[in-house]
């Protein structure tokens, strides 16, 4: 793994001030029907992905990862903010029209559960061929040649191309999912927990395949995962999300070695691993996350669960700031990197 991510020229993807608010049914009376509540799924997110870079996106369920992914893949429209991809502002293109946009083929996705995301009535060949037909307009011999080429790239034996998903093993299904995504030569691949449904023995093979494809095809990855051990091994840089905000980002190995945001610290301390008695240094986050519905913009999202919180955290929302070269965190006290959180409960 390279310690410094290669950021050459303009980043491939640049997201600025991105927000997605969902209106929710508020208690409305006939008198004030304007009183609406909003769920802040993604609440002001900035990040970049350089060409050839692998960025890991971690956070717990409900933190806004999936919404962020759907915004970047332009399946839904942002409430505010810009999404610049390969120089163009794709955030301005309505989601309904993005399917016909020039950049459509350049962003592809590998879904969480390969078995569920493959059409059970499509053979592996047809699953891989479909995006080529639709987005590249290929057919006939050219189509077959390209499908066989990507099958080869992903290590899928050609004799399996005629099979249906249920006739394939978990690892083979994962390969079909990846082959389908890379078939149209995307520049950005979004991987949504691509190995969470796989056994460890197969997971290794798929991760190594992804690593290999990235260098061979010059892809950029946005890797969404719960499994922090996997993120650490695959990613150059990580983004830690909590309650719609990015609370910390930086080179993966350095964030893992010394997390600076209290949430990242708690998250990493919860990772079980063999030969590592994590229980002795567990940092607890008591309570439940704050409600994402109409959050108070002047309170730190972690307030109430954080052992380090002071009055300042309740009155001013910490902004993302540089705490070390190429590392940023949104915590008033993130600079005190060496000191462990004082009031944290260790089990």
């Amino acid at each position, binding site marked *: *793994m390279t310690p410094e991510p290669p950021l050459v020229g303009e980043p491939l993807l640049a997201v600025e001030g991105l927000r997605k608010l969902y209106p929710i049914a508020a208690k409305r009376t006939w008198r004030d029907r304007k009183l609406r509540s909003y769920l802040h799924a993604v609440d002001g997110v900035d990040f970049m992905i350089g060409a050839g870079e692998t960025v890991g996106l971690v956070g*717990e*369920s409900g933190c806004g990862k999936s919404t962020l992914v759907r915004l970047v893949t332009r399946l839904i429209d942002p409430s505010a903010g810009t999404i610049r991809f390969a120089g163009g502002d794709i955030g301005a293109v309505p989601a309904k029209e993005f399917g016909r946009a020039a950049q459509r083929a350049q962003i592809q996705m590998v879904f969480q559960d390969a078995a569920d995301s493959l059409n059970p009535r499509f053979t592996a060949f047809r699953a891989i061929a479909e995006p080529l037909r639709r987005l590249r307009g290929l057919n006939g011999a050219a189509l077959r040649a390209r499908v066989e080429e990507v099958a080869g790239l992903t290590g899928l034996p050609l004799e399996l191309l005629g099979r249906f998903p249920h006739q394939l*093993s978990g690892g083979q299904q994962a390969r079909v999912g990846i082959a389908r995504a890379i078939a149209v030569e995307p520049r950005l691949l979004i991987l949504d927990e691509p190995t969470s449904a796989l*056994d*460890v*023995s*197969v*997971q*290794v*093979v798929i*991760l*190594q395949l992804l*690593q290999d494809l990235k260098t061979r095809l010059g892809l950029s990855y946005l890797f969404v995962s*719960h*499994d*922090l*051990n*996997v993120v*650490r*091994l*695959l990613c150059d840089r990580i983004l830690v999300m909590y309650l719609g905000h990015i609370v910390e980002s930086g080179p993966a190995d350095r964030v893992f070695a010394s997390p600076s945001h209290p949430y990242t610290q*708690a*998250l990493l*301390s*919860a*990772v*079980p*691993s*063999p*030969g*590592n*008695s*994590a*229980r002795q240094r*567990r940092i*607890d*986050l008591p*309570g*439940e996350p704050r409600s994402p519905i109409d959050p108070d913009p002047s309170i730190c999202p972690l307030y109430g669960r954080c052992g380090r919180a002071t009055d300042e955290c309740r009155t001013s929302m910490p902004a993302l700031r540089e705490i070390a070269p190429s590392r940023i965190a949104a915590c008033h006290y993130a600079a005190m990197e060496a000191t462990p959180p004082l009031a944290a409960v260790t*089990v």
Partner: protein
Amino acid sequence: MSAPRADIDRRSLPLLAIDDLSIEFRTRGGIVRALDRVAFELKRGETLALVGESGSGKSVTAHAVMGILPAAAHVAGGTISFGGLSLLQADAKTLDEIRGREIAIIFQNPRAALNPIRAVGKQISDILVRHGNVTAAQAPGRAIEMLAKVRIPDPKRRAASYPFELSGGMCQRVMIAMALACEPALLIADEPTTGVDITTQAVIMDLIAELASAEGMATLLITHDLGLASEYCDRIAVMHAGQVVESAPTSLLLTRPHHPYTAKLIAATPGDAASLDDLASIPGNLPDLRRDDLPACRYSARCERRADICVMPPVPRVALAGGGHVACRRPLGAEA
């Protein structure tokens, strides 16, 4: 609690003893030999992890102990002894007394395991009234106590909630409260944290560990996550294709695996590895358990150390110096 319990001796050593358990499933595609002479023991207050990949027979083993195998399953041999009582011979009435009271299970998907149209407090009360020697009038209060015990904030209010109103982590805590309501001697946790967040996983596992040690309860943790098993369990039993290939105290198993499969499993787990290249996959697949000519050692076809003798029965169960045993003709470290 002085209610007549089923004839169980909680102090018996070991609490749970499974010996030579073989289970087959009769399917249209043939007989699936799901378990092959599975054997392990669990002492009072001890925590044992059953670790293995999908299809290795972990859940079948747990379901056999609970007596909740599907109708297609057939016990081809072996015994399950719990507190001196043979569970496979016990009649339905005895099993009804044991399940929920002496042996409790936490299922993988709490949302699917809870009744969606009954308030969670009521679901806990039901168990208390059925098994816990508590009157219907006392049950709601005890249910709230149980919810507080699993650290559900505002338990009084939560007792009236329905499963859909609670997060996955909360539902899992309700499951734990239900399982522990009658202070069972044995808790079976079948992948209790699959699909929950990592911080919630830590909280739930800490909770199980803490309550288990406070009550002297034995825990059988079923998981595919070697990291989780090593963090919480005293001993680990590794399963592959329906066979227990190795069982040993956790630190011994991790530092000195004796079965080639255990070693491969450790090498594939992205725990402390510095880079992806340090991880090694396990070649081959699980054998088709419907085959009539399954080799004696079901790992032999994938094994680098395979010898001709490996396919011949029986696979010896070799005792290890530090405790535990390995089922292998040519265990690692035997040459030294």
